[in-house]
């Protein structure tokens, strides 16, 4: 497992992708737009050009996240919140939470949890007046991907992108063997959580809802759903958020089960223990995902994920195709576009 985290030698993106083609599940690719210089922090989930159908219309992408002004800590105002309050609705923190939910509602109007497919050219158009390096990188993306789907920037973008891509992949492929395989993995995750001391009823509803979605994307049952229905469900908060929460439980379970492995990486992200990290940065909804989350989810479910990172960096030589790769699985699969070259 250890060698997985070592950056491998630089590789040409296209040849690498050829290799990936054989081992990766199509569809689970995420392009995360750098958060530092865009007014909206988002990621784009890209569906790979279908090697089988070889038609550009098949792919999608998804944007990730815009974190709300989440900074208001509950005690930050100190006595400032100490007006006379009579009922639940007028508490200081309540007001903050309400404001946050208004911001979320505002955001929700701009972009659904999972948006419609857009051509890569839409992404290029957005950065038309931006850095030429970005445009160059988007061009390279266009050579490998035909479309993007944006996801809402609510901190759950990674998990939601994964949910949609994975379920869409099953719906398209009707791969019963894969469904059986992942169900076995899900059962392992359940046992992991139990052995870590989680109370069954705290997570079982989320597990049940995910398994239900998994069954319904397989055709031929009464509960089978169409592609359109999958999109509708992915946009339905009561379903979508429950599946996101399922992945959060799975991720937390994996990180804690292999806490010795994850500890050094967690230490790079937070000051606390692995358990505290899971409690504060994995389990709560809206907490953004980092490489630790991505690796853990991929390992727990045995599903390869490729992350493509789009930012303004370039090589000293001016090249923009430099990549650093690391794999989350023995099957190489996780992929960052990044500046280190």
């Amino acid at each position: 497992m250890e060698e997985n985290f070592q950056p491998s030698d630089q590789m040409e993106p296209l040849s690498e992708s050829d290799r990936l083609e054989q081992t990766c599940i199509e569809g689970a690719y995420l392009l995360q737009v750098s958060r530092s210089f865009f007014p909206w922090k988002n990621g784009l989930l890209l569906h790979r050009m279908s090697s089988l159908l070889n038609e550009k219309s098949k792919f999608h992408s998804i944007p990730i996240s815009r974190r709300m002004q989440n900074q208001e800590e509950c005690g930050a105002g100190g006595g400032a919140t100490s007006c006379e309050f009579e009922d639940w609705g007028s508490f200081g923190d309540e007001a903050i939470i309400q404001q946050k939910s208004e911001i979320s509602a505002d955001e929700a109007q701009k972009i659904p949890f999972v948006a419609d497919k857009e051509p890569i050219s839409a992404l290029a158009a957005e950065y038309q007046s931006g850095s030429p390096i970005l445009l160059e990188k988007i061009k390279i993306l266009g050579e490998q991907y035909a479309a993007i789907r944006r996801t809402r920037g609510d901190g759950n973008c990674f998990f939601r992108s994964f949910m949609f891509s994975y379920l869409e992949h099953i719906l398209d492929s009707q791969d019963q063997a894969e469904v059986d395989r992942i169900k076995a993995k899900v059962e392992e995750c359940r046992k992991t959580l139990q052995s870590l001391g989680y109370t069954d009823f705290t997570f079982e509803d989320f597990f049940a809802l995910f398994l239900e979605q998994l069954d319904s994307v397989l055709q031929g049952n009464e509960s089978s759903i169409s592609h359109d229905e999958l999109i509708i469900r992915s946009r339905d908060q009561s379903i979508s958020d429950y599946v996101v929460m399922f992945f959060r439980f799975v991720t937390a379970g994996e990180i804690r089960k292999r806490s010795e492995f994850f500890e050094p990486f967690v230490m790079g992200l937070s000051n606390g223990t692995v358990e505290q990290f899971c409690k504060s940065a994995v389990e709560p909804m809206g907490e953004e995902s980092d490489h630790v989350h991505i690796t853990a989810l991929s390992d727990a479910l045995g599903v390869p994920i490729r992350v493509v990172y789009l930012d303004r960096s370039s090589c000293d030589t001016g090249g923009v195709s430099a990549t650093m790769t690391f794999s989350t699985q023995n099957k190489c699969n996780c992929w960052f576009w990044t500046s280190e070259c």
Partner: protein
Amino acid sequence: MQASRARLFKEYKEVQREKTADPDIQLVCDDSNIFKWTALIKGPSETPFEGGVFQLAFAVPEQYPLQPPQVRFLTKIFHPNVHFKTGEICLDILKNAWSPAWTLQSVCRAIIALMAHPEPDSPLNCDSGNLLRSGDTRGYQSMARMYTRLAAMPKKG
């Protein structure tokens, strides 16, 4: 709505089953509304709250357990992280660090832990927080103990 009801019902059954598991917490669901709960918690020993019994009120939102329950002290308490007038509690798991892995029961345990380990740097009760921040532990304990006696001790006789 349906999901939150089902979850709360599971918690209710668990509470009934484990009634004696935690003698410091007595969690009770409203007879007619599963979204309203109250709890009686014992002040932790070796704190100024020892000997007191504190009542908490829970209002559970429809989006529970994706969203946290609203909890406040009904019993007056002098504590840096509890609003002196409203009983509002400043505790991360009730705000941004909430996750469905918590239960009403474990929230009560977290509140008891908060009583024993105040966080004076994020105060809702500034007077209380300032005593601790200025190092006047004795002053803080004295005030906290006084309010415990006044508000949280069962009346004798």
